[in-house]
């Protein structure tokens, strides 16, 4: 899976790039509008992570060349918060998703996976982790072949965990993912309820509890 990350902030670029490379993506980077324009026309990519505010132009202006050279590619726009106009423009121009700074890498990963699934690059809509099978097309979850009856939030929570498996997730990151753009009073304890319900439901059908609590402050989905 080949990605082009277009971002003028070097450290941000490095952090995103190294994180996504670790996850197995092949990442290329562009720091300026010009550089991005060249790479878009020269090479093929499956997904673009596009910062709108670039020193030598607006990322929105790159959208047309992306559409011209990489018709099948997904686009995730990155922008500063509250620039609602950018969001609307970006989605109108054909972006698949929109993420605002600051965001966490786990969230970005989840968005990338969702865009790729939607664009059907993997060829299948099933995500499997040991005995757990998630059908992202029908929003169904099976544990050892038994269908689980999950709420929307529990389903989102499980999918987020499985996509970010083996990674430490903070309560904030989970809350931000499940209730994005909702001011949730800076109190994230309510996640606990959803988490426990999810654990119970999986355990009831004989599934293992893969959600580990780390020092009461973070979570990790792993063997």
């Amino acid at each position, binding site marked *: 899976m080949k990605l082009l990350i277009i971002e003028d*902030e070097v*450290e*941000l670029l490095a*952090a*995103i790039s*190294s*994180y996504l490379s670790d996850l197995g993506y092949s990442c290329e980077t562009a720091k300026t509008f010009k550089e991005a324009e060249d790479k878009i026309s020269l090479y093929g990519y499956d997904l673009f992570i596009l910062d709108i*505010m670039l020193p030598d132009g607006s990322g929105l202006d790159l959208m047309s060349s992306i559409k011209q050279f990489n018709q099948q590619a997904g686009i995730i726009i990155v922008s*500063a*918060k*509250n*620039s*609602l106009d950018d969001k609307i423009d970006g989605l109108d121009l054909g972006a698949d998703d929109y993420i605002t*700074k*600051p*965001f*966490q*890498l*786990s969230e970005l990963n989840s968005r990338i996976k969702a865009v790729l699934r939607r664009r059907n690059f993997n060829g299948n809509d099933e995500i499997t982790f040991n005995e757990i099978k998630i059908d992202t097309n029908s929003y169904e979850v099976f544990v050892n072949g038994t269908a689980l009856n999950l709420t929307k*939030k529990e389903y989102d929570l499980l999918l987020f965990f499985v996509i970010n498996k083996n*990674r*430490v997730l*903070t309560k*904030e*990151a989970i809350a931000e993912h499940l*209730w994005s753009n*909702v*001011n*949730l*009073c*800076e*109190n994230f*304890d*309510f996640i606990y*309820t*959803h988490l426990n319900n999810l654990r119970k439901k999986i355990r009831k059908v004989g599934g293992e509890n893969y959600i580990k609590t*780390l*020092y009461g*402050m*973070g979570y990790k989905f792993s063997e």
Partner: protein
Amino acid sequence: MKFLKRINRQYFWALVILLGLISALGYFVLSFILDRKMSEDIREKEYAIIKEIKLRNNLPNIYPNVETIQISENKLKPKVYKEVKLYDEVDNETEDYLEYASTVEVNGKYYLIKIRHSLVEKEELIAAISIPLSILLLMLFTISFVMTKKLNMTLWKDVENNLKAIEAYSFAVNDELSLKATGIDEFDKLNKTIEDLTDKLKKDYHILKQFTENASHEIQTPVTISLMNLEVALQQELPENAFKQIVKAIGAINRLSALNDSLILLTKIENNQFLSDTVVLLNKVFEERIEILSTLFDEKNLTVKFEQKGNFVFKINRDLADVFVNNLLSNAVKHNVQDGVVDIEIRKDRLRICNTGTPNKLNNDTIFSRFTKENSKSYGLGLAIVKQICDKHGLEIRYTKTEIHCFDIYWRNKSQ
């Protein structure tokens, strides 16, 4: 009262008073002249009568104007003027006369001379002069009054149009304020001053706007970098202490970011950078938000009572409406107690949201101020934002505490 109406009214009364004064003055002057003329006339007649007696020993008698009789008393009486009523055979009615009586001595004999002058003549004369004069004055004043009014209206038309243009002007819409030249020096000078002032304010506004946008962007980038690096650091095998420190740092950075967002939001509302361009049904926004925040209600096991007794409609930016309702609801949850209650009541022109909470009444003076917090888990900006939104949309918000804490929101001018 409108400027023109006031001017016209004053002008009208001044004219009325002036007209009255001129009429009174005219009457007195005319009357004075006529009276003098009359007594002169009488004296001339008296002189002529005395001459007639002296030369021809003839006593002239023309009733009712002249009467001359010889009297037996040898004594001169003082000359007297008095008004009398006499029957006029010609007109078949009694008329007013001015009677002059004097005793004179001619050639050693005494005579009583009475000369009478009709007063009707004087009144008729005054009328004959003052009526056309009054009509003339009245016409003059009416024409002058109407013309001034017309002229004022045309002159002020431009000023009124300019006023409307200023009222409709908004920095956020970003159009030029162009005022129509009136051709009157003072007004044009005022126009120019307003245009210059607006230009300057507009520049300041844009600088400020740009600053908030830049500040927002510039802060978000380092915040994002910090968050990402901490997130990466968190993935290593870490001792409990280090792990907790990193999670706390992430939490603090998230708070910083949220704080930044809230402050920028407040500034944007203060600067009128949100266009109130959508007609929003508040009931609907509440329904949506209650659904979204249901997790929070469940967490504290709160009972939510949502009564819709009318449709509350207002013009606002759509996102701002979400923030408005979100903050009100969050506030009601945040300061609530376990198994508490949230009561929402919406009427056509007012909204009431109540929640159980601390037994103490909150400080009415500071509750809507920034960074007033009940506990460390909030920023103290939520209600400040709500207040600011109220202020900008003609709404009033009031806090009361009976058994529970209540916030009433209603229209400022339609308030009780």
